[in-house]
């Protein structure tokens, strides 16, 4: 084994993608030659090879890969480790990192032969091709040099922007130039026009002369013509004037009008005469003035009396109605109406009785109430009193005089009270009360005047015995005496009340008698008025009743008066009517007709008289009209005479009148033309005499045409001057010229650069051709040797048209990669890799291990054996690893390479499992799901449901977040669904709910980045180096609580984190964004999140269970409430 031989002696795959734990035991039995890594698919063969390559070359490093290995080189040991994407290579016994020789990133793939990569035609071949090219040019990448030197193969085309800009600028300049060219002789043109325009003054003078000459000729001719026309009229037309026609017409009109007046007046006279003739009776009566006056008076009287008659009749009817109404009102009070003559005294009596009513009834009531207040009469009172008196009298001697005086005072007081009561009673019951009072008072005084008589001993003894008193005891006797005094006073009082009761009973009797008497009188009086026997008609009601009776009586009186008045008016009317009938000899006595006949007669008489007066007036007017008519006819005759025309020939006159305006116009025109002619200048007249009118007009026309031309030139001159001014002041062409020059200059500059670029291209091609001619790439030679060996000299390897090709040795025919069979292609690519290996390791001391991954799978036996042979040769100088799951490949290799070491990863994995997880008999316990309770939140507590995290996968949530009731959740848990994700697999319902929660989570994550902790940094890609100042600053920065990726980005931008440059900076920012540690935009509100969820699911309505589930999830995350 030479000193360049580097080989693995130990390899431990701690962790990798797909393997969280070491998949198999550390491998310690590597051979220095061929090592066949075998085992079933998925056991980790390719992973093992990739880890070994990463450890060697530092390529394809995964952050999740964790591996360690020992590589030996003679006595030297290299410790290789890969942790969190960091590759550490160091010699054993050395602490500092040191790269393995030959570590080459660019061509590290050379050491790896994977079947799937080799089968890919493009594969990594391009890398090698480039390398070959570079090698062919002495180690210089000509393509890169070409690019760096900004060479170009040719010049720009017509679409070059700068060229187009030049064209545009040139076109604009030319357009402006053309504009200028048009006006090249503008100054001459202006001068010519001005010269021409200057002749206008002279032409105008000439034009005027000719105009005047023409006018002179024309005026003279006009005068001649007018004279001839005027003399052609009748000479008498000269007598006419402008007002002749009007005057004549006025005279004729006057005659006609006067004639019409006379005729009309005659008609009016005749009419009036006819009218007078029709009033024969009126003619007779009109002369008797007295008769006419009487007729008028009777008519007036009749009219007045008729009115009075109707008025009295109306009032009579009204009085009758009022009387009837009043009578009707009394029908409920009286059985029949009383006689009016009896009414007044009866009413007076009844009123008097009604006035006593209250007093009588009140006396009865007061007496009855006094009697009731005195109580029941005591029949034993008299006897008891007498006995008490006796006892008192008997005891009195035994006691002192003080007691006796006391007894007198009491009696006196009682007596006074009785008298007082008697006084009051006398006020109420008059004589009876007074009498009783006096009697009682006398009795009291009499009784008071008596002195107690001595009692017998027996009575005293009886009393002593009854009361149990020892009469020898003075005090007790005194006491007894006082007792007897009180008894005697009490009995005296009772006796007094008996007297009052008697008196009261008598008063009751007396008042009742008085009331009955009043009643009888009242009923008698009411009966006299025929009043209804109605209990309420008493006292106050009577007064109303009596008013009604009086009103009724008054209505009766009015009725009678109105009737009398009416009868009188009726009589007067009839009398007048009779008189009128007789005076006018009218036949119809009906009031209206009679009146109309009488009035008509009067009117007819009046009309007759007026007609007589009118006729007289009309006759006078007729006479006056006839005179006026004669005057008018006379004026017409005078008119004819004045004009020297016979009145018999009015037609001639009318003809003259018709001709007169023409005649007059001609005369005036002649005057006007004469004036005009006189005004014409003499030179014009002289000119007129030299030429005919036609000649003059032709000449004038010519002058006018010339003037018109000048006017046009004047306009043109104005335009030209304006144009000239614009052109002389414009900088347009200068600007365009400069723009064009600038564009040309830029294009020229661009051309110059392109000349340089194309020239470089020419140099490049020259140098490249010369280089290719001079250099034969060693790599191709080496590769070809390998290719020839493993194809048994069937093929050679060449580079043609920038790619590797196989050339058949027998025919010299070349085949592209795509034209080769997969086996041959693998052989060719294998050869290229080997050719490069020679190149790579040329001049170095390193022979690094090679890795093959099932490259014989697509080869037939012959080719497989050829490859195996090649591998055998390789193992002479280096360690080789061949990974395969195919047992026949293992056998083929073993048949060729006798000392091959077979490492069965399946066996190692089994051993690993048996050592790390030896079989231990175990008992198990089935946990039962807690019984559902109705309160869903309480059930969560029982189940120890955990709160969700914003960036936690929805599938890992507790199923509690998917269900809506404890029963439903219990069912899920009983089915062993411990997460929402598991539950979602069980039914579309939960899948939908999980999707909704995911949508809510995504919306909520917007603007709410993940909290970034130091531990998360383990996943940061290796491009962000750990052993740097910025890394330590990042770690320190994250030591603070709740820092997000956004905070970190801000710190980087604020230079708080320093020296973090691209590409590490870009890689870190990309990782932060990918892992959602950074987030753009503002956080969404609850409503916005719900809206976002709604967009993802049309059935997500506010009244759905799903809506409640999402709200509950958001609330659990601390957003909103539920």
């Amino acid at each position, binding site marked *: 084994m030479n000193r360049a031989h580097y080989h693995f002696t130990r390899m431990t795959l701690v962790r990798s993608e797909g393997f969280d734990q070491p998949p198999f035991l550390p491998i310690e039995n590597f051979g220095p030659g061929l090592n066949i890594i075998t085992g079933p698919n998925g056991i980790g063969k390719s992973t093992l090879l990739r880890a070994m390559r990463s450890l060697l070359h530092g390529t394809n490093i995964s952050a999740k890969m964790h591996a360690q290995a020992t590589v030996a080189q003679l006595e030297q040991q290299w410790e290789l480790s890969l942790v969190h994407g960091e590759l550490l290579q160091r010699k054993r016994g050395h602490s500092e990192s040191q790269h393995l020789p030959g570590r080459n990133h660019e061509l590290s793939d050379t050491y790896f032969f994977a079947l799937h990569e080799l089968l890919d035609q493009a594969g990594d071949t391009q890398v090698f091709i480039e390398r070959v090219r570079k090698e062919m040019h002495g180690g210089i990448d000509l393509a890169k*040099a070409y690019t760096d030197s900004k060479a170009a193969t040719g*010049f720009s085309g017509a679409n070059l922007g*700068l060229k187009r800009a030049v064209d545009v600028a040139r076109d604009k300049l030319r357009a402006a130039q053309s504009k200028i060219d048009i*006006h*090249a002789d503008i100054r001459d043109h202006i001068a010519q026009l001005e010269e021409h325009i200057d002749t206008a003054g002279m032409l105008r003078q000439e034009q005027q002369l000719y105009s005047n000459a023409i006018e002179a000729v024309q005026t003279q001719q006009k005068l001649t013509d007018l004279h001839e026309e005027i003399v052609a009229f009748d000479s008498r037309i000269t007598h006419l004037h402008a007002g002749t026609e009007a005057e004549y017409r006025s005279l004729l009109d006057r005659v006609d009008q006067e004639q019409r007046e006379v005729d009309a007046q005659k008609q009016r006279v005749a009419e009036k005469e006819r009218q007078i003739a029709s009033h024969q009776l009126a003619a007779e009566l009109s002369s008797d003035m007295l008769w006419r006056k009487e007729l008028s008076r009777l008519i007036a009287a009749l009219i007045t009396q008729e009115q009075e008659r109707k008025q009295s009749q109306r009032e009579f009817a009204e009085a009758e109605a009022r009387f009837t109404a009043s009578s009707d009102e009394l029908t409920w009070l009286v059985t029949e109406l009383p006689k009016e003559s009896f009414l007044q005294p009866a009413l007076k009596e009844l009123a008097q009785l009604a006035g006593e009513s209250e007093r009588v009834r009140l006396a009865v009531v007061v007496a009855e109430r006094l009697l009731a207040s005195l109580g029941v009469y005591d029949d034993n009172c008299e006897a008891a009193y007498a006995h008490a008196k006796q006892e008192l009298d008997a005891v009195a001697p035994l006691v002192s005089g003080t007691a006796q005086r006391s007894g007198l005072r009491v009696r006196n007081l009682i007596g006074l009270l009785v008298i007082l009561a008697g006084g009051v009673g006398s006020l109420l019951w008059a004589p009876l009360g007074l009498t009783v009072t006096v009697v009682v008072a006398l009795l009291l005084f009499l009784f008071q005047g008596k002195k107690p008589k001595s009692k017998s001993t027996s009575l005293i003894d009886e009393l002593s015995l009854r009361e149990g008193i020892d009469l020898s005891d003075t005090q007790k006797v005194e006491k007894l005496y006082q007792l007897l005094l009180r008894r005697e006073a009490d009995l005296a009082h009772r006796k007094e009340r008996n007297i009052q009761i008697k008196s009261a009973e008598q008063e009751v009797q007396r008042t009742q008698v008085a009331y009955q008497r009043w009643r009888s009188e009242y009923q008698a009086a009411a009966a006299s008025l025929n009043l209804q026997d109605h209990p309420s008609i008493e006292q106050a009601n009577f007064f109303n009743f009596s008013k009604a009776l009086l009103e009724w009586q008054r209505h009766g009186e009015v009725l009678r008066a109105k009737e009398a008045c009416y009868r009188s008016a009726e009589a007067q009317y009839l009398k007048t009517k009779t008189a009128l009938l007789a005076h006018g000899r009218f036949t119809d006595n009906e009031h209206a007709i009679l009146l109309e006949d009488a009035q008509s007669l009067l009117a007819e008489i009046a009309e007759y008289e007026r007609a007589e007066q009118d006729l007289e007036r009309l006759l006078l007017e007729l006479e006056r009209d006839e005179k006026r008519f004669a005057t008018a006819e006379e004026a017409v005759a005078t008119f004819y005479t004045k004009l020297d025309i016979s009145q018999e020939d009015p037609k001639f006159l009318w003809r003259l009148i018709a001709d007169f305006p023409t005649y007059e116009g001609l005369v005036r025109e002649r005057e006007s033309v004469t004036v005009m002619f006189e005004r014409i200048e003499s030179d014009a007249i002289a000119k007129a005499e030299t030429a005919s009118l036609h000649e003059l007009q032709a000449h004038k026309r010519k002058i006018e045409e010339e003037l018109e031309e000048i006017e046009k030139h004047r306009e043109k001159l104005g335009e030209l001057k304006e144009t000239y001014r614009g052109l002389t002041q414009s900088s347009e*062409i200068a600007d365009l010229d400069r723009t064009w020059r600038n564009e040309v200059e830029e294009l020229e500059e661009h051309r110059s650069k392109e000349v340089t670029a*194309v020239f470089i291209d020419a140099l490049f091609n020259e140098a490249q051709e*010369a280089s290719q001619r*001079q250099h034969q790439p060693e790599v191709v030679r080496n590769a070809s040797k390998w290719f020839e060996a493993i194809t048994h000299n069937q093929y050679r390897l060449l580079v043609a048209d920038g790619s590797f090709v196989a050339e058949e040795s027998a025919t010299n025919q070349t085949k592209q990669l795509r034209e080769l069979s997969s086996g041959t292609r693998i052989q060719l690519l294998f050869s290229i890799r080997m050719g490069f290996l020679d190149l790579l390791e040329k001049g170095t001391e390193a022979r690094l291990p090679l890795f093959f991954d099932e490259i014989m799978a697509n080869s037939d036996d012959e080719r497989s054996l050829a490859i195996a042979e090649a591998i055998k040769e390789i193992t002479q100088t280096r360690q080789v690893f061949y990974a395969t799951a195919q047992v026949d490949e293992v056998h083929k290799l073993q048949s060729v390479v006798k000392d091959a070491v077979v490492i069965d990863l399946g066996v190692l994995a089994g051993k690993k499992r048996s050592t790390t997880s030896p079989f231990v008999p175990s008992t198990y316990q089935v946990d039962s799901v807690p019984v559902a309770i109705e309160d869903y939140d309480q059930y969560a507590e029982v189940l120890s449901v955990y709160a969700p995290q914003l960036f936690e996968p929805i599938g890992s949530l507790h199923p509690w977040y998917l269900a809506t009731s404890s029963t439903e959740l219990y069912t899920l848990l009983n089915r062993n669904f411990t997460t929402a994700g598991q539950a979602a697999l069980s039914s579309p319902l939960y899948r939908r709910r999980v999707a909704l929660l995911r949508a809510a989570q995504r919306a909520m994550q917007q603007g709410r980045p993940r909290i970034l902790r130091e531990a998360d940094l383990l996943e940061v890609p290796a491009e962000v180096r750990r052993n740097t100042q910025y890394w330590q600053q990042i770690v320190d920065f994250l030591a603070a609580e709740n820092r997000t990726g956004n905070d970190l980005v801000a710190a980087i931008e604020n230079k708080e984190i320093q020296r973090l440059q691209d590409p590490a900076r870009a890689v870190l920012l990309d990782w932060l964004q990918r892992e959602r540690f950074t987030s753009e935009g503002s956080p969404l509100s609850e409503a916005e999140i719900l809206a976002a969820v709604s967009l993802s699911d049309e059935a997500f309505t506010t009244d759905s269970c799903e809506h409640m589930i999402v709200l509950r999830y958001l609330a659990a995350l601390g957003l909103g409430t539920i």
Partner: protein
Amino acid sequence: MKILAASDIHLGRLPTHGSSNDLPWDAVVNTAIEYEVNVLVLAGDIIEHERYWLSSIGAIDAGLAKLKDAKIKVFAVGGNHDWHVLPYLASLTEEITILGFGGTWQSYEYDGVHFVGYSFPRAHNRVSPLASFDSALVAEASLSLGILHGDLDVPSSAYGPLQRHKLAASGVDLWALGHIHTPGYFADAKSFYCGSPYALDPSETGERGVYLIEKASARAWKEPRFLPISPIRYETLPISVTDLDSLDAIGAALNQAARERLHESDVQSLYLQPLFTGLRNPMIELEALFAGERGEVLIASTEGRSCYVRTKIRNETSMAIDLEEVAKGSGSDAILAKLIADEEWLLSCYKRVAAASYNGPAYRALEPRTESDEAMLASAKTAAMTLLQAMVKQRREVER
């Protein structure tokens, strides 16, 4: 007698950095009045083109009126630009006298001086005007001044080729020439180019103005005195990039040099085109200096004067690459280094490409520009070095 001589005003053409095309003419008129000259001579190309006469005539009329008021006589000849229009204008006014209309020689004595002149008969005139010059025109003159438009020392020129010796032997005491915009006095040819009064575009570097001619004696002129009147000046600003290792350092050097140049200058607007020379670090891209900029960049401004640097740079640097050493290698870079060393092949290749460019559809409308072989070879080498630089860069990166 004092005479002011001017030419190549090109009225009608807007200067690249001017707001009005009348300014140069107005400046000439005002200078003539200021210096109280007796005569103003105009040696052709007063107007850019006949298409511009209308837009120029206002300014010409006004200027001639002012000169007339100042009693200054004006003599002029037509140049290749205004051969037709200038005489035409003269026919419209009496304030200017055109000499030699239609390609003839004409003499005009004024105040004891014979003014002789020749106007272009057409835009292109390959015949030397001096071929028809007759010395008898000035034989009797005590003092003469020739006014002529033409191309000095370019025998094949289409614009009136002039021979130096013929001018000297013409018998004319002094020639005021037009056509070349760069002013200059040639004592051996007894002549001077008036030059353009104003710098019309960035290619017109250096001072621009008019000449004042005064009598030294009754039979001799003093040497013409140049009067710079252009407020705009274009200049090249050479910057050596040797030892400048970064773009920032080059930018700083450029800035410093521009400020110094402004300080030394007295024109209103100074436009500087950077010309980078010296050995350049192959890793530095000079084009990046003004990346994204166009036209010019204002560098400094003081007392109403401003200094601009044009973004179009001239790169005449040579890279720190030892061609001989590179040529010793065996790679493509070595082959290229050998090609660069073959200047004849390089020039012919470049000429071929440059000529082909005008046949391309994008550039067919351009008028082919003639460049000297030296200039083209320099461009070819610069381009070739660009490619070589890209190769060497790769190799050096590999070596690092």
